[in-house]
């Protein structure tokens, strides 16, 4: 495949960035959540 490196790189960057961002949200939220009572979270 021509330019395989570029093609794989673009997919890795795409899903890697989304994954890293998702993990970041979850980790930060876990940190904050220890201070917030569970029944104040309307989505639960």
């Amino acid at each position, binding site marked *: 495949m021509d330019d395989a490196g*570029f093609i794989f790189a*673009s*997919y890795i960057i795409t*899903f890697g960035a989304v994954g890293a961002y*998702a993990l970041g*949200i979850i980790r930060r939220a876990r940190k904050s*959540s*220890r201070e*917030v009572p569970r029944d104040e979270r309307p*989505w639960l």
Partner: protein
Amino acid sequence: MTTTDTNTSTNSSPRDRVTGTPFTRGLGVVILAGMTLLIILGIFVSPADVNQGESVRIMYAHVPGAWLAYLAFVVTGISSAAYLWKRTRSLTWDRIAGASAEVGVLFMGISLVTGSLWGRITWGTYWTWDARLTTTAFLFVTYIGYLAVRGLGGTHQQRARRSAVLALLAVLEIPLVHFSVQLWNTLHQEASVAGRGTDVEMDGLMLFTLFLGVAVFTLMYVWLLLHRQRSLALDDMLDDSGLDNALTARRAEAQGVAR
């Protein structure tokens, strides 16, 4: 990642119940499946292009990224308008606006990077200042600025009002970016699917893969938006509770947990 298990507080939710719900977990499973299918179709199954060869495969990440970034910025605009319109001045609208802008910046960044790689293969250059690339760069920078303005401090209502006005101005850039390829001579090609013609000039399997990409990116957007919106809500509650950040650190210390 390891701290939640050792926290004995009953206020602390099970680790998967912080911002997640059964809905978002189901959504996550669908996203992983769709992602796998997109990678298989995009990289291996779909055909190479007559002129561009294999490089056309980058399109399946680049185009959905750009479209969903537009959508995210439009959602930011709409929820900012809803915040200003409703008498209640609900901060939920403000947090949806902020979360959506953040996801939009992420997707726009993905689109810029993948587009740059695609450009290196087909045009022969990573970057050039044609109207499409320039207006896109401006849009990207504008929303980074929007996120910075959200972080300037003040009360939550001050933050919401300030950023809502900015969001309503910033969303006006989107038509300029989208139509830049028609208004001016650009190196960037015109839109194939959302262009002025009714004919879509694209091979069937390529088009299917592109729409799969759009579907996967849409689901990723929804997942990220829900989670980010909730984590912003947690942060706001934390501010409201009057506890300063040192408390978190002190409690962690008292329990012998690093971080």
